């Protein structure tokens, strides 16, 4: 029991630290690409703490308050159901009680809790943002899960542990053995990270609206915290599935950072898409690739 508790706190702490560092890096990276100096790597941590220690918080009814709590609980649950390390007793959380499909669904708990809170606020622009978010989710989830399903079919299991264990060395990484699944999944994965160019939902400049429009003070802090942790959990999940998992913390950081860098690079390079363009894009390019993947790996016996 004590092991579980310590382990859980370790995972939460690690996700948080990695989260603000990664986002700090992203802001630096973005600034440099745009030829600015940009803030410190720790800026996200400072921002987060500032929010969390605000004295005033305005709420719009009980559901508005409980929404962020649900989101946070969902994020932490997700973190705790993703195995961070391979062949280790530590940083496992409750991942033995879950599986890939469960994790994918846990990822969605957050947006839905958010939707409740925003709806409760009564701001129509917020709700519009939620609808856009759900629409984007509809677009990205199909190729995302199809890519993961290709992996599940390949290994005949939905257990993340089993998939990790099967990737013994670099040549057996799913990135190598099942590249098409990786390609199918990676763009939707970026969208699920709220990364540009798929980030019109909560885009900071263009829309004075979006799911976060009514949140302030400590609630915003909670939302920011969970967002950083969730990002890390997703990165770890993909590292587990395609990059063979990690046996040490350093390897984990390296692999997740590599994935994050890829996301950041794409984000800074492409202009933002509208929601319906996003959906249409996901249903054409990644899904089309996914269909090719299905044809190549499932229908025809040569593979």
């Amino acid at each position, binding site marked *: 029991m004590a092991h579980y508790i310590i382990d859980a706190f370790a995972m939460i702490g690690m996700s948080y630290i990695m989260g603000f560092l990664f986002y700090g890096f992203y802001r630096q990276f973005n600034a440099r690409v745009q030829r600015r100096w940009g803030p410190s790597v720790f800026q996200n941590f400072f921002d987060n703490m500032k929010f969390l220690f605000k004295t005033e*918080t305005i709420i719009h009814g009980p559901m508005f308050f409980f929404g962020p709590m649900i989101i946070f609980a969902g994020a932490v649950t997700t973190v705790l159901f993703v195995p961070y390390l391979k062949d280790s007793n530590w940083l496992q959380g409750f991942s033995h009680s879950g599986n890939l499909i469960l994790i994918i669904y846990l990822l969605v708990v957050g947006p839905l809790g958010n939707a409740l809170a925003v709806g409760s606020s009564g701001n129509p622009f917020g709700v519009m943002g939620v609808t856009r978010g759900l629409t984007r989710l509809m677009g990205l989830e199909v190729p995302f899960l199809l890519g993961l399903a290709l992996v599940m079919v390949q290994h005949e299991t939905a257990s993340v542990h089993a998939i990790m264990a099967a990737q013994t060395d670099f040549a057996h990484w799913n990135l190598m053995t099942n590249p098409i699944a990786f390609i199918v999944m990676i763009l939707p994965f970026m969208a699920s990270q709220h990364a540009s160019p798929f980030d019109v939902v909560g885009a900071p400049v263009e829309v004075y609206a979006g799911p976060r429009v009514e949140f302030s003070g400590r609630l915003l802090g909670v939302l920011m915290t969970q967002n950083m942790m969730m990002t890390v959990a997703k990165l770890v999940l993909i590292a587990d599935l395609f990059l063979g998992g990690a046996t040490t913390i350093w390897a984990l950081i390296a692999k997740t950072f590599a994935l994050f860098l890829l996301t950041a690079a794409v984000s800074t390079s492409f202009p933002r898409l509208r929601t319906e363009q996003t959906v249409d894009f996901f249903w054409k390019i990644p899904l089309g690739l996914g269909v090719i993947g299905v044809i190549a790996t499932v229908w025809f016996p040569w593979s």
Partner: protein
Amino acid sequence: MNLITKLLFLGLSFTPAATFFTWDGAVAWSLLNGITLSFDLTPLSAFFMLLLAIGAPLIAVPMLREKSDESAYALYALLLLGMQLLLLAGDFIGFFIGWEMMTWSSYLLLLRSPRTDLEGAQSYILFNLVSAFLLLAGMLFLYSITDDFRIQAVDGLLTADKLVLFVLFGLAFLIKVGALPLHLWVPRSYDQAPDLFSAFLSALMSKMGIYGLMILPLLFPDGFNEISGQIFNGPVAGYVLAWIGIITATIATFKAISQEDMKRLLAYSSIAQVGYIVTALGVGSSLAIGGALFQALVHTLVKLLLFITIAGIILQTGHRRFIDLGQLISRMPISFFGVLIGIIGLAGMPPLPGFAAKYLMYVGLIEAHWLLLLAAMILASTASFVYCYKLIYGPFLGHANSPEAKTATEAPWQYLIPQIILMGMLVALGIFPGWAIDVLIDPVLIGLNMTPIGTPAWNVLATSYGGYDGVAVMGVFATVFVLITVLFLLVRGNMHRAASPYDLSFCGEVPTADTPLHYGAGMGRELRRVPLIGWILRHTTTGFYAGLTRQTQAAAGMIGTLYGSNPQTWLLLAVLIFAVTLTIQSVTGA
């Protein structure tokens, strides 16, 4: 007197439960020489009987609030009798008798709503009769080959015969579950029916179609393989069924998103949810069938909960459109939780049992390597988040948009009791998915000669592809939720409520009571801009059926002109026919 009638009716609603618990031994009733009805409770029918046993009393309780209505009660009695007959029937004649009693008694109940219009009533009865007559044709065809009406495995059929049977029965039951494009009657009738009867239609009667479809594997125990050959690792017949199911689910989901009326939305959502079941049945593996059963169970509970809650809202406000409601969360908190739990179940989110059902179906599809179907199913089930959100946002969140919504009070206790019971059931099932597998689903699978799914413990849902632990998921989530809430409240800082509902960040302006702030009806409208969804939403089958009706009427009118009112013509015609026939016969010399 009134009270006694009501109590009698309540007692009546427990008859399925009584049948379920006390049934022992088979009963036979000889109708004619060679037609003997036999009734018995098989594991499969017991499962559906259980759904009926749960649902009937829960719908009866809120009905008690209304003025006692003997004829409606009598029709309910007939309806329950019909449904029990069809579940107990061991032969197709008994099945058909139950099926038809269900059809017409439900039709008469549907007529009791003042909102039922001609199109709604006619489409309900005609579609259901087409379904029934296809069933009748199928069973007569079966009889003509095997000389037997019993529901049992048939062997020694030609492939063509099997195909005919499969098509006849399949179509009959697909109409009943409202598969596209045979669904026209579903949204109309669910929408127009008396509010509580909609719950019955959606939660219980649509399951009878599922029960019918489940009979198909019973008839063809070697799977659908022999009917139509193989394609892509599976039988074509199963593949076709699965695609019908998933196309139904997808399109109905998009249709649901675009609805502006709560009951219509739920109607389309029912079509979609039942579509998943059809898909899983098409897969036909024990995992998928288990998933289908689980989904049937969850969908029954969820739709009971949602329809009863919505009926409560309509009762209290008199409104059913999203645009007319809003912000009921503070006035109807229990109903809010009812809908919340309902949509979580509907969306298939963990930790509620909707997820367990989805999980089994997904794993079934992955195991069968039918990944494109999986993708389509994910599309449908992700898109369902939008309508789920609409369903909770429209009535409960946002801004109250009508005087009634501003003053409504919580639904009466007769509505709340079933809601609370159903919420409890859903949560319990979510924590103990293994219990449902072990106690409810595995016996059915064994009855169908399939491998049981099995479970190591009641809190675990285990498959060959891995599983999950319901207690762990719920436990972790609840613990974190409580911890973070307590922590948040303990930490220094003030929190206070916005001074007025118009205290919003509204593009730098100050909204007033006249500003249209409720986004209820418009939600999802922008989805039309996605090309695929726009295309789907632009097309309906209404025109086709309206055209069919028009053409039939026109033909009827044309033939009707023969029946003039002039005796001379009648006689002339008779003599002419006489002469012509005689001439022809003489000339040909027959």
